[in-house]
């Protein structure tokens, strides 16, 4: 393999234009880093494309093509008959009109957004609190907390949902037992999943329980990097605990907080497994569908693939809009 000629110019010879913004995509601002990169720059000729080819083919065929199909399907009348070979009829934006004028869609959308918001806020607050706690604890207790968090983090979402369903079980659940026999409350035979609000209370606990460890560990990793001297200086200047946290620590870990929050928003908006299997344990599907489950029920349940496609496209656009923030952040932080 021929060694690429060293380029005297630290900036890449063919400046790529960013799809997001024309910033910092070609060369890192750090001169040392760009000098290092430059020795390889312009290199390889055909090689990088050959290396990318397998991944590109897989993504084009199994992600790109279905995405195109989804777009096409969303402007067609596409029911069960079409799945079995009947030619679909082009109806323009008909499916979108149907979906956007269907009150159920707006219910599901607002339910999903509110649910995701509650989950994200709860997760972030608890996660940051646990991170601060870990930062404060001695080695023994910190290990104890870490092990517990790791176990919760490692539980597969389906197993976790089923276990929580068992804890909240109407007849034999441990929670109803404790509330009734230990606290003397009237929770014998209480049905946690039948009432939509109560259903989502349980769902929030399941999701927050599974998500707090990620936030806690990540924020804790950030906290350990806040320089001790700055905190001491702030303390000498008379800053109290709250002031030190909000005026010194938060600015330091803000990038981490932003990325973690965006990831939580994306993950919680698209939640499927927990809601779907909780509906199987108990709970009325019509009143508890979130976007992911709704798509599944409209298309594979009712067989209206056209409408399902239209909802899918709307959800994809929504999530891509949210993730643009994540993408921009990642690009900035990584200084590509």
């Amino acid at each position, binding site marked *: 393999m021929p060694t690429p000629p060293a380029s005297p110019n630290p900036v890449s010879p*063919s400046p790529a234009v960013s799809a997001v913004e024309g910033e910092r995509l070609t060369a890192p601002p750090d001169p040392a880093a760009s000098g*290092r990169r430059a*020795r390889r720059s312009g290199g*390889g000729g055909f*090689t990088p*494309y050959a*290396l*990318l080819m397998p991944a590109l083919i*897989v*993504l084009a*065929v*199994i992600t790109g093509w*279905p995405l195109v199909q*989804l777009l096409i*399907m969303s402007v067609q009348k596409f029911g069960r008959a079409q799945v079995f070979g009947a030619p679909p009829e082009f109806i323009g934006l008909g499916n979108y009109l149907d979906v956007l004028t269907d009150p159920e869609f707006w219910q599901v959308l607002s339910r999903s957004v509110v649910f995701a918001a509650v989950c994200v806020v709860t997760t972030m607050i608890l996660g940051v609190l646990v991170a601060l*706690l870990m930062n404060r604890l001695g080695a023994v207790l910190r290990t*104890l*907390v870490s092990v*517990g968090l*790791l176990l*919760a*983090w*490692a*539980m*597969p979402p*389906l*197993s976790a949902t089923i*276990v929580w369903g*068992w*804890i909240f*079980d109407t*007849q034999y659940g*441990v929670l109803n037992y404790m509330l009734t026999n230990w606290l003397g409350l009237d929770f014998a035979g209480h049905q946690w999943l039948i009432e939509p609000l109560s259903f989502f209370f349980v769902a929030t606990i399941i999701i927050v329980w599974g998500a707090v460890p*990620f936030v806690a*560990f990540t924020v804790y990793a*950030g906290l350990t*990097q806040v320089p001790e001297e700055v905190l001491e200086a702030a303390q000498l200047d008379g800053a109290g605990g709250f002031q030190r946290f909000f005026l010194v620590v938060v600015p*330091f870990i803000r*990038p981490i907080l932003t990325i973690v929050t965006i990831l939580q928003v*994306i993950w919680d908006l*698209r939640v499927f497994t927990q809601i779907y*299997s909780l509906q*199987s*344990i108990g709970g009325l599907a019509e009143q508890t569908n979130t*976007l*992911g489950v709704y*798509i599944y029920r409209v298309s*594979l349940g009712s067989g209206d693939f056209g409408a*399902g496609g239209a909802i*899918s496209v709307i*959800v*994809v656009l929504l*999530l891509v809009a949210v*993730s643009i923030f*994540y*993408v921009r*952040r990642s*690009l900035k*932080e990584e200084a*590509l």
Partner: protein
Amino acid sequence: MTAASATVPRRRRRFRIGSLLAGAAAIVVFVASVFPVYWMVNTSFQPNAQVRGSELHFWPDNATLDNYTSIIGGGGRAPFLPALGNSLAVALITVAVALVFAFFAALAVTRFRFRSRAAFIVTILIIQMIPAEAMIISIFRLIDGWHLLNTIIGLSAVYIATVLPFTIWTLRGFVNGVPVELEEAAMIDGLSRSQAFWRITFPLLAPGLVATGIFGFIQAWNEFVFALVLNPRPEAMTLPVWLRTFLDPNGGINWAELMAGSTLVAVPVVIFFLIVQGRMTGGLVSGAVKG
């Protein structure tokens, strides 16, 4: 501000109370995290009659493996061993293929500068955010068109595409972590560029490859939506879908068996996760601290 002699003991007392509170909070966090896992395992070793009794058992007094033997035997529903085999096969194929493809792609974007490199990375990041639920219909039709429904190959192909973006992104970070100077030094010592890469850089990347691979394995092992839609036949099911067959809202749920099943599905993931987590936490937010 009062005299110094008065403030010091007060502050010390406050400090001690603070540590006590922190200790208590630590124990609360630990119990809240661990309780569901403990309750799952605890229930899974108790006879169903005892689980449905009026007393709570915080320790499996009459410990039994009946739940495990009955659920592994099938209990009249989908059999366990084929599902385990399917899960293992799909996860291993996914990891093997995705790791190789992603490794090549990561090399391309880290060790070379080329046109549309940034566009590729942006595409990868955005694809990662597209929810599987939005794609199920068209992917179902794609796999159906290939006559690969209810096959290991079909499901693996979809999983490979699902884990690829994340795997590329993470491996990119690991490759970036190995300085090019190491390779260049080896090349000055007379190795060719590819020799330098395979002898010097690749060994340094091995831990990153293992960690990323295990993470991909966990994703494939836990995946639920595609498995539910693409492989619904009992003989083609993976473990999560198999586990769901025991959830029957109409009949009574056999919680003891269900907990045994949940434990069986969770154990491999928990073990892998404990191995891998330290390396992966940084992946999603790497570089974010530098601010």
